[in-house]
């Protein structure tokens, strides 16, 4: 393929738009990690549920797309909080605190992932469902490559969601309490913060973000029960590249993963598209194990 600057730009734009979506899922994973000290392996399935919920709300019930997205976010947040209360909390309780830095929680997360996937399979079946949405915007044309409106919308909406979350965490008092919980649960508890409630809130926020990502990606690709796995892996890569627990890190990591895999697909081989994200992950782990924005190691008291 001849090199030309226009198509390079287009590939980068594609990379950034999908990268921003990886970023918001990674943000959720990072949030849960800071709140509960676990990597939530069922997060991909929350994303998949979000996509299906958005599909059902907009195609079957007929709610307009933005409303369907908000609906899916709320429902996914409730689902996430339900899972946290009923399954994960039991485990943290038996561990004697709010965190178990053990295998139990990770395995429970994997189990939840499989269970959720099968529940989705029973409800919606194994077929990929199209999620057509009419945006009423003309595709953006750059050198024969047209960028569909759904991509542009995705990037804008994702960035807005991140901005809102950032504002919430930085400048509101509840956000301050969330940060206190993430920093040290015991102290936060003694400061009069209802830590279990805030862990639920963190879970809800993270799941709402994942659902938003699902509803955004739905129109670009299609919606199917196995879509969560790959998203989880990419978002995980994004979170690690950016540095676990770092909010801007998740965004930058996501964008880097997105650009990296799109350029790899364009200039090396498209059939190995999913490898490049992990190649980047390995490179970052080799040279900057804490990620680009990460704190070296979270010290546990």
């Amino acid at each position, binding site marked *: 393929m001849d090199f030309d600057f226009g198509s390079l730009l287009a590939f980068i734009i594609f990379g950034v738009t999908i990268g921003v979506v990886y970023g918001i899922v990674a943000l959720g994973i990072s949030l849960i990690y800071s709140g509960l000290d676990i990597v939530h392996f069922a997060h991909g399935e929350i994303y998949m549920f979000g996509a299906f919920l958005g599909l059902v709300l907009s195609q079957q019930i007929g709610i307009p797309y933005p409303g369907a997205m908000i609906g899916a976010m709320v429902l996914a947040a409730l689902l996430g909080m339900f899972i946290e209360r009923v399954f994960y909390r039991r485990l943290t309780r038996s561990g004697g605190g709010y965190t178990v830095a053990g295998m139990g929680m990770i395995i429970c997360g994997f189990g939840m992932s499989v269970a959720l996937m099968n529940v989705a399979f029973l409800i919606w079946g194994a077929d990929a469902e199209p999620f057509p949405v009419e945006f009423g915007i003309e595709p953006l044309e750059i050198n024969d490559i047209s960028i569909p409106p759904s991509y542009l919308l995705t990037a804008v909406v994702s960035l807005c969601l991140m901005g809102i979350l950032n504002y919430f965490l930085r400048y*509101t*008092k509840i956000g301050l309490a969330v940060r206190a919980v993430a920093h040290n649960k015991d*102290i936060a508890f003694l400061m*009069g913060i209802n830590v279990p409630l805030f862990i639920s809130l963190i879970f809800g926020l993270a799941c709402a973000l994942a659902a938003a990502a699902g509803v955004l990606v739905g129109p670009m690709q299609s919606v199917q029960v196995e879509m969560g796995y790959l998203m989880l892996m990419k978002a995980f890569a994004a979170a690690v590249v950016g540095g676990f627990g770092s909010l801007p890190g998740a965004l930058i990591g996501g964008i880097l993963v997105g650009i990296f895999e799109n350029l790899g697909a364009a200039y090396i081989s498209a059939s190995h598209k999913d490898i490049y994200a992990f190649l980047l992950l390995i490179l970052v782990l080799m040279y900057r194990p804490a990620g680009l924005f990460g704190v070296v190691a979270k010290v546990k008291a």
Partner: protein
Amino acid sequence: MALLETRGLSKSFGGLKAVSGVDLKVQPGTVHGLIGPNGSGKSTFFNLVTGVYQPDPGSHIEFDGHDITNLQAHGIAALGMARTFQLLRLFSEMTVLENVMVGNHCKTSYGIVESLLGTSRVRQADQKMKEEMLDLLEFIGLANFADIPAGELSGGQRRLLALGRAIAMKPKLLLLDEPGAGLSPVNVDKLMETILSLKERYKLTVVVVEHILKVVMSTCETISVLDHGQKIAEGPPEMIKNDHAVIEAYLGRELPDEEIRNAIRGQ
């Protein structure tokens, strides 16, 4: 009526009785000292009272007229009990102002949903709270550091901030765990002055655990002495200074009187 009262307070870890059958009354408006050799159960006592540990069955803790024996830590904090830690445990990545604002969290009058919506009531409440917190920082002398991360403060400033964070909870009872640990004698005196002025300003009752006996003897109205998890003595400083059981617990053996007194006075 006592502000804090424990009856038969016990806690065992396996076979070890860290605290056993402690009856203690803290009168409102006083500074109450809690002393004892290392491992005598002082910290466990704090952890039991603040809800970090669950006491053994048969224990009873009453605070400000409420039975708090089985309450969780955040519930007890909301009733008006605050504490500091020997190792401070500040939120080091947050700014000084944010640290005290976290302390003030339990006084928030609005809910999560309202906060997310950012109503004008929320903004007004936040603004008022922020002014109060800046006022508090001014009083403890940290106003100039409000916007720098707590981790960048000096050791003495961190101690002040830990104190400020506890005061921000607007407590009725303040539990201090070795406030003077690691400070030079001059700084300890200064810190105790600050603590006493805070006590007057915010109308606090204070329970202090401290190893520097000179400090305890000069500031506390009542002193309780723990040894091996049991209360072995209680009374005003003068009485404790001359108590035979206390002297034995600290020194373990008989010594000529004058020598013992000097040792206990930290001379």
